[in-house]
C-alpha cells in the first residue's frame, strides 16, 4: 500500500475501530507524554508565587465605598509549581522550534533569538509611551529606520506604523482610501474582493462601511481581469488583491488591474500577507499598489506566540499618505526624529490624517525584532529569503504532485506556497484525514480548506528556513499519508493517535460553550484529569 520507511517498517497505524492501546497508568501520564490539570485545580487559595509584604495603614477614606468585597476567586501557585505547570503545558504544543510548520499564508519561519535579546534591552522594553520625546530618541529612531526599510523595500511613498496586526492594517488602508475619497467629495460604496481572498479582507471592507462584491477567478487561479474591468465603475472605492495570491500564484496582471482601477477612480489595496515570496525581488509600488499591509510576524520573523501579538504596518502611495493615521514619526532637516501626535499634525503637514487607530505608537516590541531581522539579512539577504522560500515551495510542489492533485500545477511555478486539493483521495477520505495523518508523522499540518476556491484545499508554505533534509523528511511523510488516503487506509480516519489528544469534539464545544472554569478554588469536586482520561 505504501513505501517502507528507512527502518524497513511499512507505515500503517492499526485498523479503524481498534481499541486504543491498552495502556493505563496510575498518573494518567505515559512516560514523557504528560497530562496537566488546570492551574485552578492545582492551586490553593492564598498560595502565592510573589513575596509581597502587607502594607501598613488603611486606604484613603474616600475609597471606602468602592472597596472590593472579595478578592478574585483565583488560586495562586508558588514559583516551582508555576514553572512546572507551564512547562508541562508547553510540551503539548507543536512549534517551529520542533519542526516544519507549513501553514500556507502564515509564513511560519524561524524566529531568530537575537531579536528576542534586543527587544528586551531596558532602553526598549522599559520605556513608557508618554515619556518626553527627548528621553526616547532611540525608540523613535527605531520606528523611523524600520519605516525607511519598509518604504524602500516596497517602493512606496509612506508608511503607517501603528496598526497592531494584519487585519488592523487592512482597516488602516481602507480608512485611508475612504478618507481620500471623501476628501475629493466622491463617496463610493463598493469594495471588490476576489473569491480566493483571506476572510479578513471582506470583513475589513464591511467594517469600514463598504458593501463587498466578489470577483471571479480564471481557470488558472488568478483574478479575472476582464470580469474586474467589467465591474469597475463610479461606485467602486477599492479593489483588494492578495499578491502573491492565496493559491500561491503571482497575479501577472497586477499592473493592468491597478491601471484599470485607477482609471475608474478606485484605489488598489494589496494584502501583503504573502510578501515573503517577493521581498527584494519586486516592489509593489512598481505595480500600482496604493496601500499594502506588511505582517511583521510573517515576512520579518517576529514570533507568532500562539496567536499574536502581530504587527501590521501599512505602506501607502503618494495619493494616500496624507490620510494616514496618527501618531507617526517624521525626521526633520536637523536629523531629529519627532513623534507627530494630534497637536502638531497640522504643523507637520498632516491635517488630513484620518485619526488614531490605537492608544499609543504601535507594536514597538515587534519593531525592534523586525529591524534586527532586516539588518541581519540586509538588502541581499532578504532577496535570498524570497528566492529560497519560492524554491522550497516549488520543490514540495514537484515532489508531491504525482500523489496529490495540484490544481494549478500545470500553469507554471508557484510562489512561496504549494497548493493541492483532495481530488484523487479515496471515497470518504478528506483533506482533514491527510492533515491528521501528518500529525501522527510528527509534523504540523498545512493550511486546510483554504483558499475556498479549491475544494479540499491544502496550502503548504515551507518558508526559506527549512533545510533540504528537513523538507525531504516532510515530503516523505506527506507522500506516505497521501498514498494511504488514496488507497483508502481506514486507520487514517482515527488519526491522530500519537498526539496529546485524539480528534476533539468541536460540535460539543460550540453547542454547549464552556468558556471559563466553573469550579471553586480549594473545593474538591471537579474530577482530576486522570479520572476523566487515563485510557
Amino acid at each position: 500500500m505504501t513505501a517502507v520507511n528507512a527502518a524497513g517498517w511499512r507505515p500503517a497505524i492499526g485498523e479503524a475501530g481498534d481499541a486504543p492501546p491498552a495502556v493505563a497508568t496510575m498518573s494518567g501520564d505515559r512516560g514523557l507524554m504528560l497530562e496537566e490539570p488546570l492551574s485552578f485545580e492545582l492551586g490553593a487559595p492564598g498560595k502565592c508565587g510573589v513575596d509581597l509584604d502587607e502594607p501598613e495603614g488603611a486606604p484613603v477614606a474616600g475609597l471606602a465605598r468602592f472597596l472590593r468585597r472579595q478578592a478574585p476567586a483565583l488560586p495562586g501557585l508558588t514559583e516551582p509549581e508555576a514553572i512546572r505547570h507551564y512547562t508541562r503545558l508547553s510540551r503539548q504544543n507543536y512549534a517551529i522550534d520542533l519542526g516544519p510548520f507549513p501553514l500556507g499564508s502564515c509564513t511560519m519561519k524561524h524566529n531568530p533569538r537575537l531579536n528576542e535579546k534586543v527587544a528586551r534591552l531596558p532602553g526598549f522594553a522599559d520605556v513608557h509611551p508618554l515619556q518626553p520625546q527627548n528621553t526616547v530618541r532611540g525608540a523613535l529612531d527605531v520606528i523611523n529606520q524600520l519605516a525607511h526599510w519598509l518604504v524602500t523595500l516596497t517602493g512606496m511613498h509612506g508608511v503607517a506604523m501603528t496598526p497592531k496586526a494584519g487585519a488592523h492594517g487592512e482597516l488602516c488602508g481602507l480608512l485611508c482610501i475612504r478618507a481620500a475619497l471623501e476628501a475629493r467629495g466622491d463617496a463610493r460604496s463598493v469594495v471588490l474582493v476576489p473569491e480566493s481572498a483571506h476572510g479578513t479582507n471582506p470583513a475589513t471592507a464591511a467594517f469600514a462601511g463598504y458593501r463587498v462584491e466578489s470577483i471571479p477567478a480564471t481557470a488558472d487561479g488568478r483574478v479575472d481581469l476582464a470580469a474586474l474591468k467589467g465591474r469597475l465603475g463610479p461606485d467602486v472605492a477599492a479593489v483588494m488583491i492578495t499578491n502573491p495570491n492565496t493559491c500561491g500564484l503571482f497575479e501577472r496582471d497586477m499592473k493592468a488591474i491597478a491601471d484599470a482601477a485607477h482609471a475608474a477612480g478606485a484605489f488598489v489595496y494589496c494584502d501583503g500577507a504573502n510578501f515573503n515570496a517577493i521581498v527584494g525581488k519586486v516592489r509593489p509600488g512598481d505595480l500600482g499598489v496604493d496601500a499594502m499591509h506588511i505582517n511583521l510576524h510573517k515576512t520579518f520573523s517576529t514570533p507568532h506566540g500562539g496567536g499574536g501579538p502581530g504587527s501590521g504596518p501599512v505602506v501607502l502611495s503618494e495619493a494616500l499618505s496624507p490620510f494616514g493615521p496618527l501618531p507617526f514619526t517624521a525626521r526633520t532637516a536637523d536629523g531629529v526624529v519627532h513623534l507627530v501626535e494630534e497637536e502638531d499634525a497640522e504643523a507637520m503637514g498632516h491635517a488630513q490624517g484620518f485619526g488614531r487607530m490605537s492608544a499609543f505608537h504601535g507594536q514597538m516590541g515587534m519593531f525592534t525584532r523586525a529591524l534586527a531581522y532586516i539588518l541581519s539579512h540586509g538588502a541581499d539577504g532578504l532577496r535570498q529569503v524570497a528566492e529560497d522560500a519560492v524554491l522550497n515551495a516549488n520543490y514540495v510542489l514537484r515532489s508531491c504532485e504525482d500523489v496529490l492533485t495540484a490544481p494549478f500545477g500545470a500553469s507554471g511555478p508557484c510562489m512561496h506556497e504549494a497548493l493541492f486539493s483532495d481530488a484523487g483521495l479515496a471515497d470518504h477520505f478528506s483533506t482533514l484525514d491527510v492533515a491528521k495523518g501528518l500529525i501522527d508523522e510528527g509534523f504540523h499540518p498545512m493550511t486546510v480548506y483554504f483558499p475556498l476556491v479549491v475544494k479540499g484545499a491544502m496550502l503548504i508554505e515551507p518558508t526559506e528556513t527549512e533545510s533540504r533534509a528537513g523538507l525531504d523528511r516532510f515530503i516523505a511523510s506527506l507522500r506516505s499519508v497521501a498514498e494511504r488516503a488514496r488507497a483508502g487506509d481506514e486507520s487514517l480516519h482515527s488519526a491522530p493517535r500519537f498526539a496529546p489528544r485524539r480528534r476533539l469534539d468541536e460540535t460539543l464545544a460550540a453547542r454547549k460553550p464552556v468558556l471559563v472554569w466553573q469550579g471553586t478554588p480549594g473545593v474538591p469536586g471537579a474530577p482530576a484529569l486522570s479520572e476523566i482520561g487515563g485510557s
Partner: protein
Amino acid sequence: MRYLPLTEADRAEMLAVIGAATVDDLFADVPAQARLDGPIAGLPLHASELAVERHMTGLAARNLSAGSVPFFLGAGAYRHHVPASVDHLIQRGEFLTAYTPYQPEIAQGTLQALFEFQTQVARLYGTEIANASMYDGSTACWEAILMAGRITRRDRVVLSGGLHPHYAQVVRTMAKFTRDVIDTRLPELQAEPDDIALISSIDGETACVVVQYPDILGRIPDLAAIAEAAHARGALLVAVVTEPVALGLIEAPGHLGADIVVGEGQSLGVGLQFGGPYLGLFGCREKFVRQMPGRLCGQTVDAEGKRGFVLTLSTREQHIRREKATSNICTNSGLCALSFSIHMTLLGGEGLARLARINHARAQAMVARLTQVPGVSCLNDAYFNEVTLLLPRDARDVVRALAERRVLGGVSLGRLYPGVASLRHGLLVTATETTTDEDIAIFAAELEGVLA
C-alpha cells in the same frame, strides 16, 4: 547567511528536481520590467549578529529607561514588577514559536493556557465570560461599543469625560466611518467624576455609556449608579479598566452592573515596551456571547473522552463569516495573554489584592510627600495608584524640566489634552510597588526645585 539552511549545492539539486534552470525561472510570472535584478540600491547588506546587536544597543542607549530614574508615569501604561519566571516561560519555543491553535490535538498547551486566561479575566472583571484577548485596551473599547450597537440596535454612544483621551480618539476616528453618534466631553478638574452629567446624557437612543474605572484623572466613578440609569433606558454600561491591578482593591465592574468590561492588561506580565505590544481584555455577560468579537477557547472532550480545549464559536469570525463577521480581528495578543496569565497565576486572587493594597499605599505616600511641595495640591478624594496633581504652572514645562533633572515625573494633562487651557496645570502621577521612598523624596525635591 545564518538563518538560511540551503547550500548552493542544495539549490542546484532542487532546481534540477523542479526542472528549472535558474531560480529566476520560478519568478517568471512577475513581469520582467518589474523584476529587480539585484539588491535594492541604497540599503545596507547583511550584517553579523555582533554588528546588529551593537547597532540596536546603541539605539537603546539613547532612551532613558524607566528603571534607571525615579519614574511616575501611568495614564494607561503602568510599570510593575514582573517575576523573572514569566519572561522565562514565554520564551519556551513551544509557546513562542507556535501559531494560532488551529490544530487542537497538538496545541493543547496554548489552548489550556487561553482557557485559564479567560477564567482569570472573567473573575478579575466579575463578568460571566471573557475572550482570548484583543490587540489592546483602546481597540477593545471600540469593539465593545460596536458590540453594544449590535445588541441594542442603537447607534448613539455616550463617552465619559474620564475616558482616556487616546481611547476617545480611537472611538471618534472609527465612528467617522461607521456613522455612530458619539456624545463626548472633556474632564473637569474636580474631585468627583462627572457621573451626574453623564447619567443625564443617557437617552432612549443610547446604545451604551462608556466609563473608565478608575478614570483618567484617577477618580473612581460610581458604576452602580450609572449602570442603573443606563439599564433604565435600555442602554448598556461598558466599563473600561486601564489598570487591572486596581481590581484587587476596588469592586469588579461586573459586580456593579457593567454589561461589558474591557481594558488594558499590560500591567500584569507585559511591561511598558514604549506602548506595545499590549493586550486587550474583554469580558461580558454570557447571553451576549454570540455577539462577541475575537477568539474564544472552549472546553470539550476528545475521541477517547479526555478533557481538551478548542477554539470555538468561530462562526462569529472573519475566516468563516467573512463580511458578516462580528469583527475583522484575526491575530490577537496570544503571547501577551500568556504573560498576563502566568503573572496572575503566580499572584493568585489574594496576592493580587495584596499587590493592589501595596500600590495604593505607595500612592498614599507619594501624595503625602508631593502635596508638601509649595503650590502643589491633589485633586482626588478617592484614588487607586494614580492621582491628578494641580501645579501652579503649566505641567508640560514642569515634566520637561524634571526630565532634564533625570526624573520622569508623570504625564501632564497638556500632553493628553493639547490646547485645553483648563487642564494645563494638571499632572498625572502614579506610584506602584516599584516606587521607593527614595524615588518619592527625589521627585519631591526636584519638583520643588523646578517650581521655585
